């Protein structure tokens, strides 16, 4: 008997705009000790589904059934549901930094979970807490059990969360994006930890993620969700390696992890639909390359494919019908043959030190950058990788002239920044532009998009009135936005579109250098591919030089000619992308690569299929 069996579950959430159909007619089952993966883009309903199983969404309407150990959780009274929660069903959430209470020690928090369900003394509970902390690899658990969450690193806190979740040996563990907030090297350890726990304790695990590569290496079975629908369900190998559904196929092809040559990514055009509508036909129809008339009017049937069940009118999917444009346009000058283009950014021995300290207290110094050397040549993309806090963004801000360095030399387009006069600063602000990670935070929500993109023209007094309008419209067209949306507000655009707005604004003054600081980290795979393609096209079209900062190795690898690996404020390795991938010399680089590989250990045949 399966541990969990979800049958025809639909979940509606009442909102100010109407009923949101977050989950529609989803069915799946999970056996003991199974690793069941749920993938889907942001907003596809993964978290709603998983929290609903825990009974943590009280104001929703649920139809269908959730059978857990023979009981239907949809109709179970809250009192009994509470007894299951934490005891038989446990949860690990996305962000370990915010998921633990900052004011209670980890021991108190674990004991609390134990004491809520077992009649033990405090001392016995504490002993169990120590045991389980040891189990998840916390060193010296007797001492650390009294520490507070802030005394642990992000990865350690996630281990504590796992310890708390498995303390009572639950039958089902729901992990909602357990590694998304962590650095790559730690992600792999956490995934291994969860994998180990389920084998040791026989726990069934539901692993929710948007990371396909990660799932393909560990999931026994998997389900792909799109706009609240279950698009495809089946064995992990089949769904993530040999999918039958057009959406899954498109999703896999969009992932830069599966791209070995620096070519164009295939992408799924368009945006996910609004969950407020209830479409009569297939939800994917507006974006599907294989859509037929029937798809738009009738709900597709569930088909049995090569190793999975999928919702589609077309038999066997449609390999190769996604938007796969011609190979990447060749660069005007062959990089290797021609004489090296001149450097546009030259940085030597760059240092940045922060001094902190109170009026009375002792001053502390933090070295953020410890002597960075860097050269970016015209028309080239230099990728900078490193984990959070290694100084990537500080470096970018100094080069963009937004922050003064504490030492070293920066020269931009052949001029030393230390000797800049007012005119030089002006031209720096035009020639060097930045595009930031957060497409939501970096746009003023109360201003119209046309005005936002036109800002640089206004600030630098380039043009005004009708001319400005028409140039803004040209820019919108250039980055793939509909120029008719000139008067809309940022909130009316999706994440990917907002990132296009950010890029349009950056390109307004025809810069020579663009610094991208994690430009696609907040975006979904299918949208990410669209933006990466846009970035690459623009580079060739406008002869731009890029600094591309990211923690995502597969993305950096896809776009960069050369790579720089940073760790704790230092450059540990530098070279062409191919060199570094094939022959990493520094142990830290190897560690990063290996960590990324755990995720990308996709079946070999798929690699061939995509690169062919």
């Amino acid at each position, binding site marked *: 008997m399966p541990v969990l069996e979800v049958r025809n579950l639909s979940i509606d959430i009442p909102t100010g705009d109407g009923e949101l159909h977050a989950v529609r007619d989803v069915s799946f089952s999970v056996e003991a000790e199974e690793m069941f993966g749920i993938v889907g883009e942001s907003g596809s309903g993964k978290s709603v589904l998983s929290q609903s199983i825990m009974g943590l969404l009280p104001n929703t309407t649920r139809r269908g059934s959730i059978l857990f150990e023979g009981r239907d959780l949809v109709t179970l009274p809250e009192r009994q549901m509470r007894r299951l929660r934490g005891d038989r069903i446990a949860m690990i959430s996305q962000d370990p930094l*915010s998921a633990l209470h*900052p004011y209670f*020690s980890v021991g108190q928090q674990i004991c609390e979970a134990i004491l809520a369900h077992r009649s033990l003394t405090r001392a016995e509970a504490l002993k169990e807490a120590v045991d389980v902390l040891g189990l998840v690899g916390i060193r010296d658990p007797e001492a650390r059990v009294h520490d507070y969450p*802030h005394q642990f690193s992000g990865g350690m806190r996630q281990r504590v969360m796992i310890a708390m979740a498995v303390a009572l040996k639950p039958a089902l563990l729901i992990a909602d994006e357990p590694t998304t907030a962590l650095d790559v090297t730690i992600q792999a350890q956490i995934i291994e930890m969860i994998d180990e726990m389920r084998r040791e304790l026989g726990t069934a695990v539901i692993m929710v993620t948007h990371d396909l590569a990660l799932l393909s290496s560990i999931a026994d079975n998997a389900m792909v969700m799109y706009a609240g629908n279950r698009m495809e369900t089946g064995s992990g190998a089949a769904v993530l390696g040999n999918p039958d559904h057009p959406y899954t196929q498109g999703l896999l092809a969009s992932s830069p992890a599966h791209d070995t040559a620096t070519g164009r990514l295939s992408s799924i055009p368009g945006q996910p639909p609004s969950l407020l509508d209830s479409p009569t036909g297939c939800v994917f129809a507006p974006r599907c390359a294989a859509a037929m008339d029937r798809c738009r009017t009738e709900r597709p049937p569930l088909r049995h494919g090569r190793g999975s069940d999928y919702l589609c009118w077309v038999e066997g999917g449609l390999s190769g019908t996604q938007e796969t444009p011609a190979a990447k346009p060749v660069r005007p000058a062959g990089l290797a043959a021609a004489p090296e283009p001149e450097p546009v950014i030259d940085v030597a021995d760059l240092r940045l030190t922060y001094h902190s300290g109170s009026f009375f207290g002792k001053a502390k110094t933090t070295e953020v950058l410890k002597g960075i050397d860097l050269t970016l040549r015209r028309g080239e993309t230099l990728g900078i990788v490193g984990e959070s806090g290694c100084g990537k963004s500080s470096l970018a801000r100094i080069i963009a002239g937004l922050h003064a360095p504490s030492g070293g030399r920066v020269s931009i387009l052949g001029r030393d920044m230390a000797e800049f006069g007012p005119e030089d600063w002006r031209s720096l602000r035009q020639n060097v532009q930045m595009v930031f990670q957060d497409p939501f935070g970096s746009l003023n929500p109360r201003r119209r998009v046309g005005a936002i993109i036109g800002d640089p023209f206004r600030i630098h007094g380039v043009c005004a009135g009708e001319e400005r309008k028409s140039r803004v419209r040209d820019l919108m067209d250039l980055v793939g936005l509909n120029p008719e949306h000139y008067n809309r507000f940022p909130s009316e655009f999706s994440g990917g579109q907002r990132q296009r707005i950010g890029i349009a604004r950056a390109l307004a003054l025809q810069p020579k250098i663009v610094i991208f600081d994690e430009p696609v980290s907040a975006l979904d795979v299918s949208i990410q591919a669209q933006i990466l393609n846009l970035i690459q096209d623009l580079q060739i079209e406008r002869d731009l030089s890029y600094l591309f900062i990211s923690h995502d190795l597969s993305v950096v690898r896809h776009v960069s000619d050369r790579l720089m690996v940073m760790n704790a404020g230092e450059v540990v390795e530098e070279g062409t992308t191919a060199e570094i991938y094939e022959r990493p010399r520094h142990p830290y680089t190897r560690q990063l690569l290996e960590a990324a590989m755990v995720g990308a250990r996709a079946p070999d045949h798929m690699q061939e299929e995509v690169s062919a």
Partner: protein
Amino acid sequence: MIGFLAKRVGFAALVLFLLSAFIFFLFFVAPGDPARLVAGERASDAQVQQVRENLGLGKPVLAQYGDFVMRSLSGDLGFSYRNQQPVLTLIQQRMPATISLCAGAVVMWLLLGVPIGIMSARKPGSLRDRLGQVFILVGVSFPSFVLGMAALYCLYFLPRKAGFTLFPAGSYKPIGDGVLDWAWHLFLPWLSLALTSAAIYARLTRGQMLEVLGEDYIRTARAKGLKERVVVFKHGLRAVLTPLTTQLGADVAVLLGGAIVTEQVFGLQGIGSLAVQAVNSQDRPVIIGIVLLAGFFIVVANIVVDLLYVALDPRVRTGAA
């Protein structure tokens, strides 16, 4: 920890010292001749001169200030110009009423405001929440003396008209004469001093609680299978205590201002009414004494809040950022 405390105490001493200098020189440059005031309207010039000598007012200003500081440090705040009593004695006589008023009001507004805020935040949009919001709106939009008058009218004048006394107004019974009697007599002053703050604390608690209840760690607490009561009152309230403490530290400073008005309205013989009398009669030693006392309390209250902070927040306690 000890270092931190020493630093705070040192800083407090510095603040008090500066305050004393400020208030002393302020009065020195102020118009009016204190010697004449003390000697009385009909005193002769010679008598006034005599008084001036006695009070040490003839010395250079810095010497006067030096005397003042030395005397203050030994606990002698001088004598009232008005009735020649030691200032310290005057203050000591008035202290119990004011402390009773202030402490009781703080307790009352916490007991009213915090639970109302929590009840509101637990079910936003519910009937309970809307009632709470009405309370907040009324409390923050009427000046506190209007609320005080309204409370006085409802709980004092109306019952009196009907022929009985629900709560007395206008007298203070020492706590030594019986706690119930003390509280009964102070109930109306407390209420009028506490109502506005109760509304402000309800609003603060509601806002903070709403935010905290949306935090991931609250979901974690629910996912552990804890009872909703435990989730709200242990995990939720614990996180709200810190901002509440901060607010309380700031409010203690303004509390004395409110106490002055309340003591006048209810005719309580406290520090507030003493201050009013002293200002009206230009009784400089008494005014200086009260200002220093108020400064002392504010500084001490802030140290207490800082210590509470350290006790409440393990991130501060264990020396992390």
